[in-house]
């Protein structure tokens, strides 16, 4: 890919191309990890 193929701050295009390379399963696993961290933080916040 040439440097001009991508507008470096066109976030939509950057993320579309980037996430295509990591694969859906991997992405799902990382998203689940993030969600788990978020839920745990809320448990701590509202916990005793």
């Amino acid at each position, binding site marked *: 890919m040439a440097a001009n193929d991508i507008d470096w*701050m066109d976030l939509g295009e950057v993320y579309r191309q*980037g996430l295509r390379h990591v694969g859906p399963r991997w992405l799902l696993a990382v998203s689940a990890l*993030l969600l788990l961290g978020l839920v745990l933080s809320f448990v701590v916040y509202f916990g005793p």
Partner: protein
Amino acid sequence: MGVPLLLATVVVLALLPSSVRAKAPVAEGTAPPVLFFNSFIVILREGFEAMLIVGAMSAYLLVTENQGRLRTLYLWSTLAILASLGTWVVVQTVLSLREDDRALLEGITSLLAVAVLFYVSYWVVSKIQAEKWRRFIKGRLSGALQRGSSLALGSVAFLAVYREGLETALFYQGMAFSAASSPAPVMLPLGFLAGVVALASLFLLIFKFGVKVPVKHFFIFTGAVLYYLAFTFTGHGLHELQEAGVVGETTLANFPSALGPLPLATLGVYPTVEVLAAQAVILGALVFGLVATLAVRVELGEPREAPRGNG
């Protein structure tokens, strides 16, 4: 710039003689809609900054044919977000364990949030123009790629995102102090959740439909909210340090306690020389920063524009 001035002010004020101390009024809690709004804006702004940073690093890996390293970038960025949540949990835990020193810790945390705000915001604002970003990203990532280790690349990604996360954690802790005396403290987590949903929606709009975010206006508006929060944190933080007996307290007689129906304490304004002086420094640092930014632009003859493709 602002941070050394603020820290110098805090040190000077801490050395004031205790004989001038007197009691300031009790802090008023933040109004529920304001608390919700502040909480919503902070996560939206900081999350979007992180999105921009990771996007810029992704773009660099793509144009340099390092697509295989994208997993490392995204994984370490995610770990940085988790570490930020962990930092906030640790701060919460430390505060709950040290009830005796609560006022002191609240004061230190609030002032730390202000210092980090000035440092991180200056860092982001200074790179708001595309060319500066390119140089920064290239400098950091090319070194990491040359070393060839995933850890080198991961640590660059981690630190870039964690510095946003640290600021966010400190800001939520600062807001949590005033939320505790608010009529509806639940507005803090509700605002956070709404902000996360808005951030996810924004990402989908950008990702699916290629929506362009007006970055400059977004940063100006949310930046104004953050500086307002820094102003209130300075007041609340110093007030807590005064309560802890660490900072002197010189009360001003006949100082108004409210601005119309709005109690001044909700803005972090307390009628003491120390608080007002520190807040004057914050305002001065803000004005100085704005003038300096404009002066550099004029000197360099740079066009007044937001980063390309997003504005």
